């Protein structure tokens, strides 16, 4: 059992964030590499750092970036660190920030960029396999039954969770409504100017029960980048530093997104991870002011919040109400930029950007006096990861 944190609290800081414009699926005029460069250069400008001073990169599953090319294009004086989290889709997003912080604390590198660039053209991450030739491997037990997409797999787990804890559809609805409400104040959000009412939600088509269209994340093209360095160095930079408290990644025994025989089954897979996270940070869920939680689907987000200890599963129907999740007055303001559902789906890295904004005091849905923010990445997959930041 890990009881301490080898990265001292406030030893590492998030000093720069950058984003491109966010486009709907298929609408990006530029490719992934160019978007990636733009996001990193914006993060450099935000931090007040020249790109040549970057000496490391961290990312997570499915990243396509050619890091040597990137290092050359950005004029790095020396590349000292490159690291990617295995599998997990967006499950590795918080772990990538953790790996960057660990590299800085260990002295492997001094200034590390966490990146994700995504132009969903030919690759559509949620599509699964619904046509084409024969299948082999363990997907042979899912594809022929039309049960091989992340939406379908997470719907099965969510349905079981709703059954075990008597959770209503309105709990999922509240997450979608809060996300869209926040996106209306965020001009960067793809869904800015497209408010969502409860009636809209209820009338929207099913994708796979219990998920309506608005329970599912968007497909977005865009890029985001976050620069980490030592807190000592951050004092000379442009922005108020946001400090790294702790990150944890992992999985319950035997858990896989597409394995339906594992127990616990009806879970976002944060059971072990959340406990370690709070132990390392030496804080409790009550200390958290605002959360950014990865919603591939609302059901996964709901289970993530419960497994981080913000709410008991038996209280889900009372807790997951719009008024509890909104920025200004909610008990637990959630996804204050609009999140994957309504801002953009950059595999959750945009959630870390929003966490930084909250702690700088510059969110478009600023939670008053926000001093600790949690980011949870990639529910219902493995590994998953979560992150605590403070100001």
């Amino acid at each position, binding site marked *: 059992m890990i009881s301490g944190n080898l990265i001292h609290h406030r030893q590492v800081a998030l000093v720069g964030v950058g984003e491109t414009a966010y486009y709907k699926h298929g609408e990006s005029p530029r490719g992934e590499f160019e978007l990636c460069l733009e996001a990193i250069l914006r993060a450099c400008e935000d931090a007040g750092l020249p790109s040549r001073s970057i000496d490391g990169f961290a990312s997570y599953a499915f990243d396509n970036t050619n890091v040597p090319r990137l290092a050359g294009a950005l004029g790095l004086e020396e590349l000292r660190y490159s690291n990617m989290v295995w599998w997990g889709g967006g499950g590795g997003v918080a772990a990538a920030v953790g790996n960057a912080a660990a590299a800085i604390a260990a002295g492997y590198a001094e200034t590390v960029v966490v990146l994700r660039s995504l132009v969903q053209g030919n690759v*559509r991450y949620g*599509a*699964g*396999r*619904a*046509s*084409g*030739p*024969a*299948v*082999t*491997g*363990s997907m*042979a*037990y*899912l*594809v*022929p*039954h*039309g*049960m091989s997409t992340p*939406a*379908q797999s997470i*719907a*099965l*787990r969510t*349905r*079981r969770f709703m*059954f075990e804890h008597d959770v209503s*559809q309105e709990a999922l609805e509240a997450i979608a409504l809060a996300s869209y409400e926040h996106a209306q104040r965020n001009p960067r959000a793809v869904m800015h100017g497209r408010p969502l009412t409860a*009636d809209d939600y*209820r*009338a*929207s*088509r*099913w*994708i*796979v*029960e*219990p998920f*309506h269209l608005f329970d599912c994340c968007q497909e977005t093209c865009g890029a985001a980048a976050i620069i980490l360095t030592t807190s000592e160095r951050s004092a000379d930079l442009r922005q108020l530093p946001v400090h790294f408290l702790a990150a944890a990644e992992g999985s319950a025994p*035997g858990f896989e997104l597409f*394995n*339906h*025989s*594992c*127990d616990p*089954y*009806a879970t976002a897979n944060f059971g072990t991870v959340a406990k370690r996270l709070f132990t390392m940070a030496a804080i409790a869920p009550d200390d958290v002011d605002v959360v950014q939680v990865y919603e591939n689907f609302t059901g996964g987000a709901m289970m993530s919040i419960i497994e981080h200890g913000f709410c008991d599963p038996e209280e889900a129907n009372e807790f997951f109400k719009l008024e509890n999740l909104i920025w200004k007055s909610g008990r637990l303001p959630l996804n204050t930029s609009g999140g994957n559902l309504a801002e953009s789906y950059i595999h959750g890295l945009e959630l870390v950007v929003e966490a930084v904004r909250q702690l700088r005091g510059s969110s478009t849905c600023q939670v008053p006096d926000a001093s600790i923010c949690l980011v949870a990445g990639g529910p219902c997959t493995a590994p998953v990861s979560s992150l605590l930041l403070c100001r």
Partner: protein
Amino acid sequence: MSVPHQPDRTTPPAGQPHNRDDAARRNTSISPPERPHEPLFRRTPDGARIATARYLGGALPVPEPPPGSLHHQFLRAARQHQLMVQRCQRCESSQFPPEVICRACQSMGLEWVEIEPTGTVYTWARVFHSSNPAVRVQLPYLGVVVDVGLSAVRYVGNLLGDPNREVEIGAPVVAVFEHLDEETALVQWTLADGEI
């Protein structure tokens, strides 16, 4: 036999309470095909249930694992109307989906054994979206995860019959074998006490 799903494109009045079936109907943009009124399965002399048609018209990709592979053995047994589970010869744990090693004791000594083709619905999902145009005209369809009373063993399949029915977690189900060819079959499920 339950009443086949009828398309209903009328829009309910604003403010009508949320109802799953109404929502499903008004959001079905393409009329579902007539569901055949023939039985879902026939029985072999041994009592095994054999599907009378390919689910969703066989529009989905089929499994073709390499001969001799883990997955090939399961699919071949299914064609012989047997539901199989992988069992460890050392610690006697069962597991499915199969693995090359026992997940409980890490022995490589594993064998396939036949189990009763019955279980209960552990969870379910009704699918209304597919990226396959041939599937799209047959939406919705039902996916189920079936518990057979063994730890670390569950089967994912389709629940044959009316796709708009209410599904109850815990409902008893019986395996139905859907022939793909002379060599392999899929394992599907029907309600134990449901439609024939």
